[in-house]
């Protein structure tokens, strides 16, 4: 009896494997005959970052839909026409790869999309560590790789020829923090001591390192730099230490997993610095406010985008309405970056007039999208020789009354910044 079941098991598994291999072949074959333009997207669709991956996916799919179907009332690139006009109105088709948040897997997925799915360009991959390896595959195969949202400065310093980044990186972002502090000092606030609280990953450590460098240049006293392993069983030691060092500003690089503990430990200690500035990470994910309520207010976040800019730029609100109708929630800044990156890539493919990688690469290098055609508060998109968007910039938002408000640069602020953050007993 036992031996029969074993043999059956083997037979079934063998048959299963055969079907699957064949299945893969067939999809590959089908892909070659479709009159669409396949674009690969590699993002963390499972694992700890899957939530963010899913949001990014929504943003990119919305961008593809805007390209593929006519939206005459939007002043976005390619919105008016159906598909890519210079390619005979061919539509773009997205093929998704799941990086699981792991660099090796991200690279393997990029390779799979390039070879098996024959994508003409890639977009991805959120985390800098994954973007670093996934773009390596593209560089080796000579396929353009567009990165909308990774923040490690290192990515555009590798001398890659096929790598383009539309969004800002940590240096740009961190500069925002310090420029804001300088402006606040001009208004009479006393800010001298800065501390960093970051998770001990590539994301956290890079952000911490850049902040350290800026503190030196801007002549602030870096009183503490605490890295912790996520998820922590407690952050008590970190905050006891920070409280003793009494920084005026804490710069954080943390994801949502730890945000809840950060807020609650601060509240437990009945302490809050003048300002807590965060590298997007947790503050801009809507779940943050669901989980922390009023306690999550007054955090400041750097963002290349905020819903609030819609007041000055109606295009933003119109795109966000589309997004909300489709996915039931507002866009966040990561989604906006991914959305913009996707449109930029589609624009380049259209101008290339074909799907040859070299033509797309050339078109990307020649990209010049004016700021008016973007939902971002940027002057536009133009790449420098290293593939970095020259106009990528950011702004500072603060969580006020349960909403994300642009508070800096002061010229475009929606609401006056609350500084210093009120102590817990006066909230």
């Amino acid at each position, binding site marked *: 009896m036992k031996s029969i079941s074993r043999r059956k098991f083997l037979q079934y598994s063998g048959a299963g494997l055969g079907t699957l291999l064949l299945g893969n072949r067939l999809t590959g074959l089908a892909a070659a005959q479709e009159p669409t333009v396949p674009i690969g997207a590699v993002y963390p669709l*499972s*694992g*700890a*970052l*899957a*939530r963010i991956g899913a949001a990014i996916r929504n943003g990119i799919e919305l961008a593809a839909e805007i390209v593929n179907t006519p939206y005459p009332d939007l002043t976005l690139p390619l919105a008016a026409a159906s598909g890519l006009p210079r390619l005979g109105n061919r539509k773009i088709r997205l093929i998704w790869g799941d990086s699981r948040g792991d660099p090796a897997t991200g690279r393997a997925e990029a390779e799979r999309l390039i070879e098996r799915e024959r994508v003409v360009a890639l977009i991805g991959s959120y985390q800098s560590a994954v973007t670093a390896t996934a773009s390596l595959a593209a560089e080796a195969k000579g396929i353009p790789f567009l990165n909308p949202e990774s923040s490690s400065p290192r990515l555009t310093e590798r001398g890659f020829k096929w790598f383009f980044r539309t969004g800002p990186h940590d240096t740009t972002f961190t500069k925002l923090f310090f420029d804001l502090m300088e402006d606040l000092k001009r208004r009479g606030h006393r800010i001298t001591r800065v501390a960093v609280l970051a998770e*001990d990953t590539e994301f956290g450590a890079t952000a911490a390192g850049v902040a350290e460098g800026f503190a030196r240049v801007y002549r602030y006293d870096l009183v503490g*730099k*605490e*890295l*912790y*392993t996520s*998820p*922590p*069983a*407690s952050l*008590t*030691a*970190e905050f*006891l*230490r920070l409280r*003793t060092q009494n920084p005026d500003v804490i710069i954080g690089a943390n994801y*949502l*997993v*730890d*945000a*809840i*503990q950060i807020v*609650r*430990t601060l*509240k*437990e*200690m*009945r302490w809050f610095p003048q300002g807590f500035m965060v590298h997007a990470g947790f503050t801009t994910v809507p*779940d943050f406010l*669901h*989980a*922390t*309520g*009023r*306690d999550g207010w007054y955090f400041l976040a750097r963002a290349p985008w905020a819903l609030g800019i819609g007041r000055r730029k109606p295009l933003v609100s119109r795109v966000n309405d589309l997004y909300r109708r489709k996915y039931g929630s507002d866009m966040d800044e990561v989604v906006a970056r991914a959305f913009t990156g996707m449109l930029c890539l589609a624009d380049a493919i259209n101008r290339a007039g074909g799907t040859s990688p070299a033509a797309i690469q050339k078109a990307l290098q020649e990209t010049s999208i004016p700021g008016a055609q973007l939902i971002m508060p940027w002057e536009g998109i133009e790449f420098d020789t290293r593939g970095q968007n020259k106009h990528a910039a950011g702004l500072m938002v603060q969580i006020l009354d349960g909403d994300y408000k642009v508070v800096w640069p002061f010229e475009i602020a929606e609401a006056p910044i609350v500084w210093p953050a009120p102590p817990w007993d006066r909230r």
Partner: protein
Amino acid sequence: MDLFFHAAVNGVVLGLVYALVALGLSFIWGVMDVVNLAHAEYLMLALYATYWLWALGRVDPALAVPVVVPLFFLLGWLTYRLLVRHLLRAPLATQIFATFGLLFFLRYSAFAAFGPNVRGTLEAAPPASLSVLGVPIAAPKLAAAVVSLAAFGALALFLRRTKTGRALQAVAQNRDVALALGIPAEGMYALAWGIAIASVALAGVLLFPFYQVSPTIGDAFLLIAFASVVLGGFGRVDGALVGGICIGMVENVLGTLLLPTFKLLFVFAVFVLILLVRPEGLVGEPQ
């Protein structure tokens, strides 16, 4: 000095929380010499149970105790019936592997069922801070710490004063002799698993207002729980209490005074040191 005092008070409170998490681990280890690698996953599941009770049924976490704790007693009992029972005579390695598989299974089932989203809620029970000797401590943590002491006390009383408790001890000391005396060892083991998992669920419910809920939260506690058990002396219930407090102190006092970045390093260094120098633990008797 003030900093040291704050760190020490926090350390003791946190240590008591760790001890409550480690209680069940130590108990199972003591009663049947099984190392349950999946222990912290039950904490994660209890956090989820509390969350869903709140999110779907608007049940206040404080009131979730009478629902979640018996439920997890049952879950522990089931774990014993379905898995552990088959491993009683198996070599130690097989037992370790089985609970290791259980860890994988529970964690990724939670991933599949609940998604990787981080959940938590503040509206349910805003954690106000209470003052302990002038040091502010979040109410949920303090509650967990107090309940931790009570749980250790109750378990000790149960083991010493009740007939069932003494029977459990007899099984723990010598299964075969206990069997010969007519004590149903299987039932006792199932009971031990029930108690162990119920106690870690209790920790989960109490910690819910302070912690986030995500499938990987077990990672934060697993090694700390092991460290507590080994530090105190494995197989002794009071060992987990002593060990938990020591870990809380090492983490907070050394972490705060020296370098927070290396706080876990200190914890694990102490853990390894105890393993090497005094494997029987701080309160255990030398073999």
